């Protein structure tokens, strides 16, 4: 199972503005991410990182190309089916946290559960216990009844991470999760990410900062909507996947 492919894309393309002015935000992206990888995506502003994350997160659909998530072809799914995938397969962490205001940390964490059609076997008490466990995992057991406005940025982002984990997703996507945080809070979040990774999570994270990206195993650089480089961290060598593909191509 450790070798299972979580993300597989084929010439993923996204074109914005179908009129006169067209922006090719993604330009034929082939990507392969396996289970329990921790990947950082870097690149200049406007290079298509968020566009990629939105498509990987099933929030958006590619103009062209194929996307297979944990063996399931996402390309032809309806809006409701995509919603189900987002709910049960993906945990998305946003730069701006996106917590519901006037709602406690606990309720925010439980939000994805109410849309989950697969947890009918769980009683309300069990669901609450699970949410409490998630809050404990992100070190917020003492803040469960706090509203977002009573929490620091780092704490809000930790609530968001607990929310992302609540339905046991196969993939955690984070688009600049530390973008709004100071470096101390940022490092705390990265500590948490590493923790999740060590527990078996598959994580894809966008970041601008090298010291944040340093926590990942693998770094993908984007430019103008395509992958410029894809390397294992700390090595200046290509990622084994790429090396493999290069081999395939040369044969």
């Amino acid at each position, binding site marked *: 199972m450790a070798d299972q492919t979580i993300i597989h894309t084929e010439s993923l393309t996204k074109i914005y503005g179908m009129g006169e002015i067209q922006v090719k935000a993604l330009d034929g992206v082939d990507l392969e991410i396996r289970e329990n990888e921790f990947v950082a995506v870097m690149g200049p502003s406007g290079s298509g990182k968020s566009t990629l994350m939105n498509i990987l997160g099933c*929030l958006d659909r590619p103009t062209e190309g194929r996307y297979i998530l944990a063996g399931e072809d996402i390309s032809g799914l309806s*809006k*409701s089916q995509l*919603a*189900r995938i*987002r*709910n049960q397969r993906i945990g998305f962490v946003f730069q701006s946290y996106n917590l519901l205001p006037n709602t406690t940390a606990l309720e925010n964490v439980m*939000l*994805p559960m109410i*849309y989950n059609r697969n947890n009918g076997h769980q009683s309300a008490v069990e669901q609450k216990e699970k949410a409490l466990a998630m809050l404990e995992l992100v070190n917020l057991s003492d803040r469960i009844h706090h509203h977002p406005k009573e929490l620091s940025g780092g704490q809000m982002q930790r609530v968001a991470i607990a929310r992302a984990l609540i339905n046991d997703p196969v993939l955690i996507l984070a688009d600049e999760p530390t973008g709004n945080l100071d470096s101390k809070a940022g490092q705390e979040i990265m500590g948490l990410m590493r923790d999740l990774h060590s527990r078996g999570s598959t994580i894809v994270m966008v970041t601008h900062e090298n010291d944040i990206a340093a926590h990942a195993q693998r770094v993908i650089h984007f430019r103008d909507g395509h992958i410029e480089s894809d390397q294992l961290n700390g090595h200046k060598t290509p990622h084994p996947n790429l090396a493999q593909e290069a081999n395939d191509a040369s044969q």
Partner: protein
Amino acid sequence: MHPSKVIQIAWKGLAKNKLRSLLTMLGVIIGVAAVIIMVSISAGTEKTIEEQITSLGSNLIFISQNFTRMGFGGGPGERGGETGGLVFDDAFAIADQVEGVTGVAVEQQSAETVEFGDVSLDSVEILGTTPDFPAVRDMTIAEGRYFTQQEDDRKQKVAVLGASLAEELFGDATAVGQTVNVGGVKLAVIGVLAERGMVGNVDFDMRLYTPISVVFQKFTPSMFARIMGDRVRMIYAKVDTDQVPMEDIILQIQLLLAKRHDVSLDAADFSITTQQDIISTQESTTAAFRDLLAWVAAVSLVVGGIGIMNIMLVSVTERTREIGLRQAVGATPNDIRWQFLTEALLLSLVGGLIGVLVGVGGAWLFGELGGMRTVVVPTSIVLAFASAAAVGIFFGFYPANKAAQLDPIEALRHE
């Protein structure tokens, strides 16, 4: 998503903006209350009319002056002919000559101060009638007797009292045999009528009944009556339609009066109305009234619905980010649609519920303080409540659909 969860979320959405929710409900509250109050008023009116009609006495024909046709050439005392209008003798002629008529009564009114001992009552209605009156108008004698034809002919100063009037003048003491002072004229009390109650806005029990000849002579009621002499405004004829059909009786009266007044039937100076005519007229009046009220109420419900739609649209715009987030964590378009539809439905149902309370309370208040007769009709409550729910679904659907169709990314980017 579980329905109870949907309701819980929708409820929270509304509770966040209590004042706004209340203001939004106001339209529905007013609409539902309006339906209930208006139906209760119209039901009350109908009930009053119903009672009035049964108390008019059965099988009654009303023969009245047709003022538009009547000549004003003749002076007082002049009889019939020359289209002088209805006169006293017309009533006797009808009683004598028309087959099927079992009695006639003539009325002439006045208002006088009535005194007995220390008690003095202002503006008591004095009704001059003929001896047939109790039979024609279905009145019962409680004590003593009604006056006779002979007393009427001789202008005997006698009085028969309504039940309440007797009570106010004499209390528990016997009225019959006493003499009352009516506008300076002494009348001997010969009888007291049984209680009859209100008929429309006329209190039969607070009247003093006396021979019509006495009213003409002593209590000339108005300038109009002075000019009119012994002309009468209205003749009541009681008929028995078992023997003679109503149409025949009416035709006989028409021919008789036309002959007596020397006019052709198309130029008649009188008009004949049956009780059925009155029932029909009043029924169509109440029906029209009810229709009007129903429209007013329907319009206010629709206005309430538009209010809900308006606020729901604002709410969808305001909460675009929330919608985007819910979609991002797995809410389907249907989940979002139900959330907002439930909010609209809750607004209209809670509004409807408050409206029912306000309506029932309002109907009671109208009855108690407004002096209006109201009867709360249970079906109107059900109907108003159901309409409120329908309005909520109908006007909630468009905003809910708009919310459901939002694109998650654009919604999340919304400021």
